[in-house]
């Protein structure tokens, strides 16, 4: 018997929403305890700040420029490398329960497996694998899917339709009548993507994901090795947790975030100091990507709306923590407690009011890029608790899972396993991470590359709709933790820029870049 792996992801969760990371509104005792017993990373970065590319990077161990799912709506090719397939080869039982999103959701022609599995009534299907063989879909023996609400054709929507159809209309309507991300307001402050949801907590997708995970774990034999990706759709918008729970955090008691500048003139001056698409989005003159409501203008965001969004977000984070606690109890009850590695993270962050913005887009700052990441190695592994401050990438997760299973980093995985301490990181020269963004939607294209070191965050924009290829941003993480002072044009930092640019150039010039670029076939 080897070490089992419980991989827990949330969606669109900021670093500072976890108690042990300094969060003050959501109580997260379960995740905090995992952090105390294991390794807490304080500078974990995604490969992309939107779902499909970032999740695909976790699965493939590759950056989007290599796995090819370069923006939401571009499906990850079905025969892309997969850590689940590699673990399957090692004899692991494999599952993903909750939000996968390697394939588009908006799929009226029913082309994609994730969307069709529920109606097919089978746990998986056979597909081509990356090495020419055929096997279970992306290496998963079992897939049960959910997303942000009750719409669509995934398992959770079907379950709710069959069992509690009266609750289908209780959720916020994520898309409007034109299939744009809905800008309609709700709650107490008329904030976008907010609604008081009448659904009981027990039927909400957070509890459903935990319930289905427990059911799958209980279907296994005691001596099975297993890899379970438990993937909660929250705290991604819409912010519509069960109404019965929202009194946990009174939005009127929530402070404005440190990243929000209350003085409008100063706030807009901060935006003007960045690349020009920041201010264009804020003013409502640019829609660069599908993920934020196209008809919502960030400049209209009020302070009370920020408070309410952050309060509801905190409620959703608490519900996830409690759901994780239930799953861990089930793991203990099966007698696996000492032999399970637990990794907790998310796919990208959320503005939540920083810079006067909500949602996400081609904006490489901590709000979207600094993520919670906790690895609680199996107690039987003897790994010591640690806090790792050096930058690490979620691209390392695939190699990490394989290392847990005793498998060396495969040729297709672009990053090595996560370090278990700062000393380990330094000894392996793990000192920087890269984040990519590419989008091209209805004539608007944006191309961004960032490199993060312990001291600097450096971003370059390639020529596109809003940029001429000369723009960039450079922030000192020690002097400017809120990334308000763009020093890209500071002549005294010429050497720093050149060194960081060389790192980006090396990343862009690595073999295989662009060879598998997919095609945009859906909005998301």
């Amino acid at each position, binding site marked *: 018997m080897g070490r089992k792996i419980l991989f827990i992801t949330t969606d669109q969760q900021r670093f500072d929403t976890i108690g042990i990371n300094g969060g003050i509104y959501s109580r997260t005792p379960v995740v905090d305890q995992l952090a105390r017993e294991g390794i807490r990373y304080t500078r974990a970065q995604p490969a992309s700040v939107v779902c499909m590319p970032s999740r695909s990077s976790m699965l493939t161990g590759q950056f989007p420029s290599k796995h090819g799912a370069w923006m939401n709506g571009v499906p990850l090719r079905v025969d892309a490398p997969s850590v689940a397939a590699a673990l399957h080869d090692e004899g692991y039982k494999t599952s993903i329960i909750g939000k996968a999103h390697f394939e588009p959701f908006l799929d*009226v*022609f029913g*082309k994609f497996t994730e969307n069709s599995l529920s109606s097919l009534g089978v746990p998986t299907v056979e597909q081509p694998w990356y090495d020419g063989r055929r096997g279970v879909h992306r290496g998963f023996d079992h897939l049960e899917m959910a997303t942000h609400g009750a719409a669509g*054709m995934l398992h959770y929507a079907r379950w709710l339709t069959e069992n509690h159809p009266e609750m289908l209309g209780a959720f916020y309507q994520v898309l409007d009548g034109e*299939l*744009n991300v809905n800008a309609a307001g709700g709650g107490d402050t008329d904030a976008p993507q907010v609604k008081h949801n009448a659904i009981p907590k027990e039927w909400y997708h957070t509890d459903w994901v935990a319930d289905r995970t427990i059911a799958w774990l209980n279907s296994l034999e005691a001596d099975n090795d297993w890899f379970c990706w438990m993937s909660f759709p929250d705290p991604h918008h819409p912010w519509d947790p069960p109404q019965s729970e929202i009194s946990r955090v009174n939005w009127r008691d929530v402070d404005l975030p440190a990243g929000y500048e209350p003085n409008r003139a100063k706030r807009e001056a901060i935006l003007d100091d960045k690349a020009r698409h920041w201010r264009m989005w804020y003013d409502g003159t640019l829609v660069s990507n*599908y993920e934020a409501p196209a008809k919502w203008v960030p400049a209209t965001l009020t302070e009370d709306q920020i408070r309410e969004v952050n309060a509801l977000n905190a409620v959703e984070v608490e519900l996830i923590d409690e759901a994780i606690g239930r799953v861990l109890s089930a793991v203990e009850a099966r007698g696996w407690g000492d032999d399970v590695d637990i990794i907790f993270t998310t796919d990208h962050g959320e503005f939540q009011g920083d810079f006067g913005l909500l949602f996400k887009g081609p904006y490489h700052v901590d709000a979207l890029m600094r993520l919670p990441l906790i690895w609680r190695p199996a107690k039987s592994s003897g790994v010591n608790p640690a806090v790792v401050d050096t930058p690490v990438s979620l691209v390392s997760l695939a190699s990490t899972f394989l290392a847990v299973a005793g498998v060396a980093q495969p040729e297709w995985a672009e990053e090595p396993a996560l370090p278990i301490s700062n000393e380990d990181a330094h000894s392996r020269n793990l000192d920087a991470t890269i984040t990519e963004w590419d989008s091209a*939607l*209805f004539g608007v294209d944006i191309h961004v590359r960032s490199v993060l070191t312990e001291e600097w965050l450096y971003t370059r924009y390639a020529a596109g709709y809003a940029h001429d290829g000369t723009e960039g941003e450079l922030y000192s993480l020690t002097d400017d933790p809120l990334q308000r002072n763009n020093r890209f044009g500071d002549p005294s930092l010429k050497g720093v820029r050149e060194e960081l640019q060389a790192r980006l150039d090396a990343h862009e010039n690595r073999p295989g870049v662009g060879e598998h670029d997919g095609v945009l*076939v859906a909005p998301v």
Partner: protein
Amino acid sequence: MATIRYERRIKASPDTVWGVVRQPASIPEWFPGITSCDMDGKLRTIHLANGLSMPENIIVSDDIARRFAYSIVSPLYRSHLGTIDVIEIGPQDSLCVYSTTAEPDVLALVIGGGTYAALDEIQRIAEEREGK
């Protein structure tokens, strides 16, 4: 208004490629996800695997220009135009261009995205026919 365009180079004569798509009633054969269609004069109603149906006006099927054009008339759309052009590159070498222009913008991609898979099928069928 937004537009989506996909192109495919096909190793088949333009007449063979055009022969795949020129008949309005042939669409279930080469558009994945469309299970059947009904024809009523110039009106074509397509039926999808998920149970949805969409009425379309056939605007033109021009054997000389090798251009097919149609328009979805669902109330979801303020406007829609789908076109398929088959262009001769060489004797057994064609370019098939499938375009979708629509308003609201997102619907151009929701429907237009399906045309990429349709090109896969058009290519497969045309190259198979040419092979025979």
